[in-house]
């Protein structure tokens, strides 16, 4: 027996084996392989940012903020992203106005009122499924429904419904399930003792929700909604389906407020898309990456805000 002939070896083997962490050559190779895969995914991010910032630098160096404040143009020397920024913020405003009240309301119902019935389970499953529907399908819904509804109620304007209002409604519906899911999680994190204390002093259910549950869940809800808005801000595919302008358009100088709101529109990610397929080299080579930098900057601000909100107001129970 080899082990009996050499007791020192056995002790070493047992000790090494018991430590567990000590990796053999194969173990180290495995760990290294996993690390390489992780670093490869991170390298992609570095390459992506380098590619985009490298392409964008000339534009920002020669144009500076002028690029951000200029409107769409067919001339690459004067074209800017202002039209897209305005469109994106308009769409986001509608998303916030429509999706947040309904989404938070639905979350309150599911977490605070609903009993564990078949109907409730159906609604929850339904919301989870909606969150997994591809965004372009929401575009088809917007095309079949919201574009027509907006036109029918007389807000179609010269685009017969293919305007910011329809886009806002479509993206509101797109993010609604995510709003419900994140708001539900935030509400669920509020401990039951808070509610019981409220009931104990004679508050009604709504009073408990209004004065205790919602204030406690607010930071979580707010973080979730900011992240959701960021998601809506970057969506492109559904907008393309519901007829966002992918080419050049200009507002008439004497256009009324109504005409501007119901007229053709574009959004920041759509500007990126339409410039990157332009045949004039400058649009694809330097203007599109510059537009991406602006887009990523907005998303960065949104995400930082969300993190700051979470860290500042996060309660531990």
């Amino acid at each position, binding site marked *: 027996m080899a082990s009996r002939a050499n007791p020192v070896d056995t002790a070493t083997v*047992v000790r090494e084996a018991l430590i567990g962490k000590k990796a053999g050559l194969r173990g180290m190779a495995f760990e290294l392989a996993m690390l390489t895969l992780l670093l490869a995914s991170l390298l*992609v991010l570095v390459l992506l940012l380098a590619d985009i910032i490298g392409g964008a630098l000339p534009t920002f160096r020669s144009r500076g903020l002028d690029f951000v404040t200029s409107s769409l143009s067919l001339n690459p020397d004067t074209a800017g992203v202002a039209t897209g920024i305005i469109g994106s913020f308009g769409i986001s405003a509608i998303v916030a106005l429509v999706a947040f009240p309904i989404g938070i*309301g639905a979350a309150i119902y599911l977490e605070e009122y609903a009993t564990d019935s078949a109907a409730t389970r159906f609604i929850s499953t339904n919301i989870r499924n909606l969150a997994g*529907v591809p965004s*372009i399908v929401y575009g*088809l819904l917007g095309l079949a429904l919201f574009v027509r509804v907006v036109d029918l109620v007389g807000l179609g304007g010269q685009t017969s419904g293919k305007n910011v209002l329809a886009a806002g409604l479509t993206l509101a519906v797109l993010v609604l399930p995510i709003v419900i899911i994140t708001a539900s999680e935030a509400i669920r994190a509020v401990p039951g003792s808070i509610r019981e204390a409220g009931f104990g002093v004679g508050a009604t259910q709504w009073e408990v929700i209004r004065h205790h549950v919602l204030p406690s869940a607010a930071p979580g809800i707010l973080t979730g909604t900011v992240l959701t808005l*960021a998601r809506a801000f970057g969506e492109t595919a559904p907008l393309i389906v519901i007829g966002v302008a*992918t080419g050049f358009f200009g507002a008439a100088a004497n256009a009324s407020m109504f005409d501007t709101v119901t007229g053709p529109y574009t959004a920041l990610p759509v500007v990126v898309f339409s410039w990157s397929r332009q045949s004039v080299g400058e649009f694809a080579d330097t203007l599109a990456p510059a537009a991406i930098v602006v887009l990523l900057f907005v*998303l960065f601000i949104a995400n930082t805000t969300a993190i700051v909100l979470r860290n500042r107001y996060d309660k531990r129970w």
Partner: protein
Amino acid sequence: MTTTTISLSGNPKRHRRERVVKRIFWASAAVSVLISAAIVMSLIGRATTFFVEVDKSSLVDIGWFPRRGLYDLLTPLAGTVVVSLLAMFVAVPLGLGAAIYLSEFARPRVRRFLKPILEVLAGIPSVVIGFFALTWLSPNLVQRVFDSAGIFSMLAASIGVGILITPLIASVSEDALRAVPTSLREAAFGLGAKRSETVRKVVFPAAISGIVASMILGLSRAIGETMVMFMVGGAVGGGIRELNPLRPGTTMTAAIASVATGSDQVVGEGLTFESVFALGFLLFVFTLVLNTVSDRFVRRARERY
């Protein structure tokens, strides 16, 4: 002396308000059901019209050219299969490797540093990944390795889609790995297993449900992804049935988007408008099935521990 009776039923106004508030919240929850119904109805009506009225022989033809009345459904289906499977070849090793390292090997401080970076990647809009695939991946990777590839290819799009779903696979399978109780790892260490053996033979099998769920979820996301394929896949407006990833192709999603960006937008000859909804309906069914299956796996994983 008069005795006053105190009404214990409370203020009727307060009661009424309770009922009204509850009804409002119930209505908001019901909106989600309405949306599902609206999606199904808007898709199914036109999809049915399409399948009833279409010339059946044009459903199996040389390619997908909706504006010319050629509706070969196999073209976008084949493109979707090719692109999403190749994307999985990119995303599964990257995502799973990242998840295993973060969950099992990384020290807490390293993890706190690396994980947010992966989350940044998850937050990058698909149009940006599409641009990256078009301007960097395609010329510097695909075209350099394969001489025959053009600037537009399904392979370049697949790598882009793979990058897009990597963070998703990483985060869902990391959750699954971390959900495996420490006691299982300790038991393995106690039996003398090395860390890498523990990961491969104990933790990984224990987390397999969640890992499978992450892959199905990734596949579902890859099938539904539009912009990357639309920007890099070529074949705008239609395409011939193609299985070679080095050639341009079209997926279901890109086919929908390219009908919408034509000069006349979604108004074409004959059944062009309806054909897009038929594709959308198929897409909806595929992703719904995949998401439901993935949900099953996640629940099974959750029940075990």
